[in-house]
């Protein structure tokens, strides 16, 4: 006996632009949440290394997107907006964190936790550690390129920089990673 299983959880956001049914802000948030929330939190986590902060930040982005829905009116534009907002807010959060660290030096924080040490022994953990050594822009470009699989044009749009700058950050970032990995592999 067979049954047709639904795909209710895999709510998809309509791809088409022309002729797409108008959706209200609540419905748009619900659909975009189902399709993109987890991935955006993971993007935030890759940039911040703090799950709680990443979740809060992405929720802020959805709330802001809800307020702008009257201007966006398009799921594709909304996704681009959310991506860009997550990166920008992550950058601001890191900046605040850096300022706070300067005013409240805490030597304990600089030592990795036991859990962190276990994680960093893994190869993929070493990659994240190497990413931490890159400049903010290089890290953002590489995460958008290799985690979200965005094109150069989409990355340029998300970061409000030129495609040439995307190429440059990507190339230099990869070169720095290669150096770091080769040092680690020895």
């Amino acid at each position: 006996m067979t049954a047709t299983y639904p795909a209710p959880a895999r709510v998809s956001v309509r791809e088409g632009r022309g002729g797409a049914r108008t959706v209200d802000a609540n419905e748009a948030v619900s659909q975009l949440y189902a399709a993109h929330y987890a991935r955006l939190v993971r993007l935030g986590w890759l940039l911040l290394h703090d799950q709680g902060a990443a979740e809060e930040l992405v929720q802020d982005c959805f709330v802001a997107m809800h307020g702008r829905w009257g201007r966006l009116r398009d799921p594709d534009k909304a996704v681009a907006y959310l991506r860009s907002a997550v990166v920008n807010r992550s950058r601001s959060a890191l900046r605040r964190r850096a300022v706070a660290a300067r005013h409240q030096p805490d030597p304990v924080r600089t030592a990795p936790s036991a859990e962190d040490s276990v994680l960093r022994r893994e190869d993929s953990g070493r990659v994240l550690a190497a990413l931490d050594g890159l400049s903010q822009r290089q890290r953002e470009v590489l995460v958008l390129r290799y985690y979200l699989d965005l094109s150069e044009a989409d990355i340029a749009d998300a970061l409000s920089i030129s495609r040439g700058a995307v190429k440059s950050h990507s190339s230099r970032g990869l070169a720095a990673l290669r150096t770091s990995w080769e040092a680690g592999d020895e």
Partner: protein
Amino acid sequence: MSEHDELGARLAGALHDEADRLRPDPALQTILARTQQRRRSAPAGSRRWWPVLAGAVSAAALVVVALVVFGLPHGSRPPETASPTSRSVTTVYFINPGGRLVPAPVTIRDTGNPVPDAVRALLTAKPVDPDYVNPWLCAGMQYDASTATTRTTVVTVNFQRPSRFVPGVGCGIDQPLVLQQLAFTVASAAPGATAVRLRGLDLYPHLPRTPVSLQPEDLAPIILESPTQGQRVSSPVRVTGTSDTFEANVAWRVLQDGKVIRSAATMGGSYGQPKAFGFRVRLAPGSYTVEVYEQSPRNGKVINLDSKDFTVE
């Protein structure tokens, strides 16, 4: 492959390996509630229509109202049309050993009212697959089958004279997952539904007042759909399912008397992009078990396994 491509592939693998392990807590209701708070605090000129609704309902109720007002993909279900004695198959979601939801077909008495039929099946169905559990069987719920309504993307289900459902008793499953089980089962009978509102359900801890939204993270990454548990089939056996795994890899093996007699790998969907997978395997008549699973990209261990026993005639 160029050096840059190789580096990129290694980086992509590592980023997915690390980030895709993250399971964010459900937050849709928090977000929607915050959007309503934001509207309340917005300047008067930007919320001319707001006073009509503001004093009347809570933020949670507003979500439902907004969905009712703005979209009508399907209306209330029609009254009973089928013969009370006719039977059909509905989909019920059960819970697998990994604490994820898996759908399975359940034969029901068809009243022509899909949502109440599906809920009734959930409250009474014992999973055929011995690996799955149905915590609703522990609850002793009674259900009024005539009062489920579907409006836009929110389905309202009314329970009648329920006994208290206490998570941790009997099946020992946490309440959020139990509610997701119900929500997915209802949604399978109401295409387009993205949330389920529950009335008359006595839960401990108390039921959230807002509709329960479907959480994709709670679905099993690998769902083996065919053959079904105990099915009698002919060779070659067609094995099908849906998956979203690391780099879309799906491994499988066929066992007879506990020994692996065939094994290979196929492709499904990658993380967050579920797709169907399928393969055929020729087998002599006999009893077999097919196991479909993912090998952890971290340590190669078998994870997210789903299995079915079947007989080749």
